[in-house]
């Protein structure tokens, strides 16, 4: 603790006051001249003393070395360097963007002042909480200062991820081990590094779990999560295995997200484009794991009547290009993403679109049944139209509207087909 390591001027004065009596009396001989009621003399300077219990150092605003509020003086005492360095840094930061003022104000609010001699010390727990707040403020300042400089895009691009990573590392390590960001800078850096390590490990586990679930191993992942939960529960009565909690949650949530989105990697990875010439070439079902799937029917000789087309894409886009004389009936289920049918679209999570226009018996009605995990379904007349999606301009979400989409002009109405 700083109070036990650093000697302020008050302590020096106290020692000077005590020295004459103590030193003289010990040199005077074996008989105590101050009488039986006098306090015992202080031990000599070289006498062995009991070591004080190790306490974390505390950052305090200095009372003896202050220009405004003792922030830089306190930092100098804390890091055992000349406070003028912090003063120069504060002034420079103030001049090149104003971060110095923010930093000083934050420290003024958050860092307590050195206690007055004889005042009761602060409870030990408060120091840790304050250190946590200080660490968060420092992270916030690191994030904010490139913006304060006005256009420090490159600096922001580098510093913001680093700041978030360090903050996340400290938080994760706090969750895993219970060690908060107290102690000196080296301790905090060590904990941040360990936390980042745990974070990376959890990321790898989450990716592996997501991949396994998408590849058909969802049941195995679910069983692993159940077993991990049982192990943690059993550990509560035997030996705690709390380190298992974060990896188990990472595994479970990633597999859950894959399952909720309905991502299925069957069908492979990459871009696939189909241009069937006739209905013989046209499959009932097209499937793709990750990538872009395009079925272009503009040159296909399509028969009159209902023509089913099933699309299954795990992650990516399914695009159906149809001629203008084809009516399109759509039933699409998208875990996260968007559905666009000509000039109508809907987006978000758990998107379920059913668009049931009617049509005349003598024209083709394409019955599109799409299941997209994460991505989009685009039904268009021109492939270039698919690039204009609702994420840029906001979604219409008017599939419930009673009228038929303007682009679906081959259809005659909604609800019941004229064919029926």
């Amino acid at each position: 603790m700083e109070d036990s390591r650093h000697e302020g001027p008050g302590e020096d004065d106290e020692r000077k006051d005590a020295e004459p009596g103590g030193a003289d009396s010990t040199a005077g001989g074996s008989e105590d001249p101050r009488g039986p009621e006098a306090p015992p003399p202080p031990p000599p300077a070289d006498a062995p003393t009991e070591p004080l219990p190790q306490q974390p150092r505390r950052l305090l605003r200095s009372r003896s070395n202050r220009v405004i509020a003792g922030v830089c003086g306190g930092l100098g005492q804390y890091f055992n360097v000349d406070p003028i360095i912090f003063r120069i840094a504060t002034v420079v930061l103030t001049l090149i963007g104003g971060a110095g003022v923010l930093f000083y104000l934050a420290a003024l609010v958050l860092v307590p002042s050195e206690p007055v001699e004889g005042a009761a010390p602060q409870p030990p727990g408060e120091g840790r909480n304050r250190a946590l707040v200080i660490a968060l403020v420092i992270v916030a300042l690191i994030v904010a200062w490139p913006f304060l400089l006005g256009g420090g895009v490159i600096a922001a691009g580098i510093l913001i991820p680093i700041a978030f990573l360090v903050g996340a590392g400290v938080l994760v390590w706090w969750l895993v081990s219970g060690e908060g960001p107290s102690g000196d800078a080296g301790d905090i850096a060590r904990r941040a590094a360990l936390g980042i390590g745990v974070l990376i490990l959890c990321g790898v586990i989450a990716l592996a779990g997501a991949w396994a679930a998408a590849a058909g191993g969802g049941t195995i992942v679910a069983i692993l999560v159940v077993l991990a939960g049982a192990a943690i529960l059993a550990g509560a009565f035997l030996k705690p295995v709390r380190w298992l909690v974060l990896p188990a949650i990472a595994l479970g949530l990633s597999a859950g997200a894959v399952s909720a989105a309905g991502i299925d990697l069957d069908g492979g990875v990459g871009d696939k484009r189909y241009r069937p010439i006739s209905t013989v070439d046209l499959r009932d079902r097209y499937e793709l794991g990750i990538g872009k799937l395009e079925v272009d029917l503009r040159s296909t000789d399509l028969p009159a009547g209902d023509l089913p087309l099933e699309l299954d894409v795990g992650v990516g886009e399914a695009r159906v290009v149809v001629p203008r004389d084809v009516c399109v009936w759509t039933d699409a289920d998208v875990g996260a993403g968007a559905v666009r049918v000509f000039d109508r679209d809907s987006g978000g999570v758990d998107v379920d679109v059913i668009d049931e226009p009617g049509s005349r018996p003598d024209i083709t009605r394409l019955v599109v049944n799409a299941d997209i995990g994460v991505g989009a379904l685009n039904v268009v007349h021109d492939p270039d139209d698919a690039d204009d999606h609702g994420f840029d301009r906001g979604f219409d979400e008017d599939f419930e509207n009673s009228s038929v989409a303007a682009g679906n002009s081959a259809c005659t109405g909604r609800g019941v087909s004229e064919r029926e």
Partner: protein
Amino acid sequence: MNANRPDVRSIVAGTCVLALGAVLLLDQTGVIELSFGVLAPVACAVTGAILLANGLGRRE
């Protein structure tokens, strides 16, 4: 830790992870259909309960 006293944080975390695994298993067997509308509250509840137990456990 007291040998006679179970670790409350582990009990809460273990129960939450077990529940998450059970939801996944039910989804895989087709008993329930997992969607983001179901998963998001489950994820929030699991993380919230674990953080709460972690924080309260430290105060003891």
